[in-house]
């Protein structure tokens, strides 16, 4: 059953969605319909439509889109399909009302083909399709579905079997060259990666890089994938290679670098942010980033006996919804993630 229908709009017959949307616009001439993309949010969690509708209301302040929300209840065998439409409007410059359309679908029964056709027939033409798959990747995710998606957003931190799921996604990416995969775990490493890059612009940190001896990464237990993706990125970019195949669930790693072996420790801390701390030690020089959950800032530091530099930058937000808003602002082809993906999968296995 759908939990709360109050925020997902007016129920309409599926065959009349476009007509009803036109009627909605005709009611008020002062509104502007804005859209830069199709955003589909797919969930198999009961009550997700209301939650996701609330999310779209916030998101459309910054990202004009045609939103299509899909909730599938696979526990009910009987086939059904219901649809609702609404708009999310925001004032721009204190006068214009800028609105984005939302179509919500609730499906039960066997849905694979119906789901795909339902979604595709309601996309805004010529606009990219961003598809946020919430939760585990089920068998409804097929290569055929992947082939029409421009950007697939997932959160590997919520998966039971990330290694196996990444195998499936890698296959989908190989089959569809245009598919951009966006793992929110990777998005959660953004400010740490920007911070590392910024710190290593400094000559003192640069000089320490070839002498790197140890690295410590503190992460929240739910966000081990963030830590592994950060480690995969550091090692690929710096040219370090694992000295041995890591064991499943390993917390200690060893990498071979030109300057010698680097010992890496991953520490899970339930009080930590997704990524809590990164400490890179090279002789007397330490390069570190520490996330302060309370202030929402990351403290960047370079410390050596003769030199001390620090600055702060914003931390990555924790909620998936805010991460997606940021990700959509950044755009891009996410080619760096593709580059580090093999190393990440190696560390994951």
């Amino acid at each position: 059953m759908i939990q709360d229908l109050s925020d997902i709009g007016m129920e309409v017959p599926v065959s009349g969605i476009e007509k009803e949307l036109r009627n909605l616009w005709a009611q008020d001439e002062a509104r502007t319909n804005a859209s830069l993309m199709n955003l589909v949010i797919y969930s198999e969690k009961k009550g997700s439509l209301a939650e996701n509708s609330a999310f779209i209301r916030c998101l459309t302040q910054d990202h004009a889109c045609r939103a299509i929300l899909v909730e599938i209840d696979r526990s009910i065998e009987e086939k059904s399909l219901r649809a609702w439409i609404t708009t999310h409007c925001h004032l721009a410059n204190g006068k214009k009302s800028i609105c984005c359309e939302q179509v919500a679908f609730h499906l039960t029964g066997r849905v694979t083909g119906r789901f795909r056709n339902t979604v595709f027939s309601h996309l805004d033409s010529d606009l990219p399709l961003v598809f946020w798959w919430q939760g585990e990747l089920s068998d409804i995710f097929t290569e055929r579905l992947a082939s029409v998606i421009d950007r697939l957003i997932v959160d590997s931190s919520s998966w039971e079997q990330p290694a196996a799921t990444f195998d499936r996604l890698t296959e989908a990416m190989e089959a569809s060259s245009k598919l951009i995969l966006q793992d929110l775990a990777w998005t959660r490493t953004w400010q740490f990666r920007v911070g590392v890059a910024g710190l290593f612009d400094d000559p003192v940190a640069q000089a320490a890089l070839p002498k790197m001896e140890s690295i410590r990464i503190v992460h929240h237990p739910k966000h081990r994938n963030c830590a592994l993706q950060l480690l995969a990125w550091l090692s690929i970019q710096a040219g370090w290679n694992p000295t041995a195949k890591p064991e499943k669930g390993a917390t200690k790693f060893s990498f071979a670098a030109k300057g010698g072996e680097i010992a890496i420790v991953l520490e899970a801390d339930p009080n930590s942010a997704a990524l809590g701390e990164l400490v890179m030690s090279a002789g007397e020089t330490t390069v570190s980033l520490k996330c302060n959950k309370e202030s929402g800032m990351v403290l960047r530091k370079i410390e050596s006996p003769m030199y001390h530099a620090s600055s702060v930058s914003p931390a990555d937000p924790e909620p998936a919804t805010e991460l997606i808003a940021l990700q959509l602002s950044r755009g891009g082809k996410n080619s760096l993630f593709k580059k580090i993906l093999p190393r990440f999968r190696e560390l994951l296995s």
Partner: protein
Amino acid sequence: MNPFREDLVSRSRPEPCSIVIFGATGDLTHRKLVPALYNLAVDGELPTGVRIIGFARRDKSDEEFRSGLEELNKKVSRSGHDDEVWSHLAENIFYHKSEFNDADGYKSLAERLDQIDEERGGKGNRLFYIASAPEFFDDILIQLKNAGLNEAKDGCWARVIVEKPFGTDLATAKHLNEVVNSTFHESATYRIDHYLGKETAQNLMVLRFANAIFEPLWNSRYISHMQITCAENLGMEGGRGGYYEKSGALRDMVQNHLLQLLSLVAMEPPTDLSADGVRDEKVKVIRSLRQWDTPEKVAENVVRAQYTAGHVDGKEVLGYRQEDRVSPESDTEAYVAVRLLIDTWRWSGVPFYIRMGKQLPKKSTEISVHFKDAPNVLFGALTGGVPGGNVLVIRIQPDEGISLRMVSKIPGTSLRLEPVKMDFHYSTSFGKGSPEAYERLLLDAIAGDATLFARRDEVEEAWRFIDHIEHAWHQSDNPPPMAEYVAGSWGPKEADDLIKKDGHDWRRL
């Protein structure tokens, strides 16, 4: 080489440096520069290890300087004010008291910078921002050179940002450029024009060269004319009359901002996106401007005017000559309209019109591209005919965006045509606010990307064009008259006549 930079940002890499701001107690530093650096810090874009040294004549401690900056940052910063971000930035802000012509002040500045460099491991990049009044430019540059601050250390760089005005005519611009270039190499000189840091100005090249539909039409075959308008609904409030009396609309806005926009909209595709690749093409446009080099040509192609008392935004306003710090006999123009011709293959016969004025009905800067009418074969005989041609409008400020006017059939059984508008607004399409122009430009200078800064030859070529007009107005025996317009109107009748001579009208904004 920093291996962690790959793919993080599609821009040149900003490096840690010391930024020395001359004229640090002034409005520009407090309202624009430091808030811009603060916002870069908020966005995590300011490199760790950036130090800001304010250089000015007033007696102040580091702490007093910081608290003054903080107070204003709280009021003007576009992203609000966060104490934690500010405290980290403030730790790296220092004040250096000295007269601009005091050699000892520069020696002690050099020592201070060396000390900072030493703390940073013996290396140091330096960015000098000359934000003082123009009369001190020479002194500052000469003293920097005498103190050896213009020389970069091994593996580092020393750059200078110069604020407008880049001279007051060709002779003074050349002089300033000579002083600048005898101190800093041209490649290390960044002449800032904040219009080029605006999102839409940057988008001009993208619009023209990343969309296949526009460039084939971007020539004399399809374009009837272009208009560049900069309208301001303010007069000489806040004592601006003193400055304006010495400059006027032509020198204050047209020589720099509006000719820069003209060059972007009219240039050929650059061979690449390098700073000189783009600037080579821009300067060719300015160099190809037909010169209005006699008073007669000026009278025919340029209109100058002053506003008389009227109403703007429902408020009664004074005439220009009655404004504070303005002479009652002033011959400074508060409005200028110029008809320009670019003698190139692409633009042969296409007039460009630039107009800039104070106390106009609203604030707006835009470029409008007016396309030629479609052949009048099919719809010419209709009642009402075809209502005007296609117009592409690029709005620079406010409400940055692009719109395209086209002709459409009005629904009904009869055939009636009316113009309709397709509109793209930055603010509604992209929720993310655009950074302030100074943020982008400061970051570019720190990263060594001079694309959005004016080069010496651009500045001098622009002055060459402007000087002829100024000479006709102020030094000829038969100067073209000064027209008048009522404050709150769209300018003088003479400006309407100027464009009407070619069969066009000013776009109604």
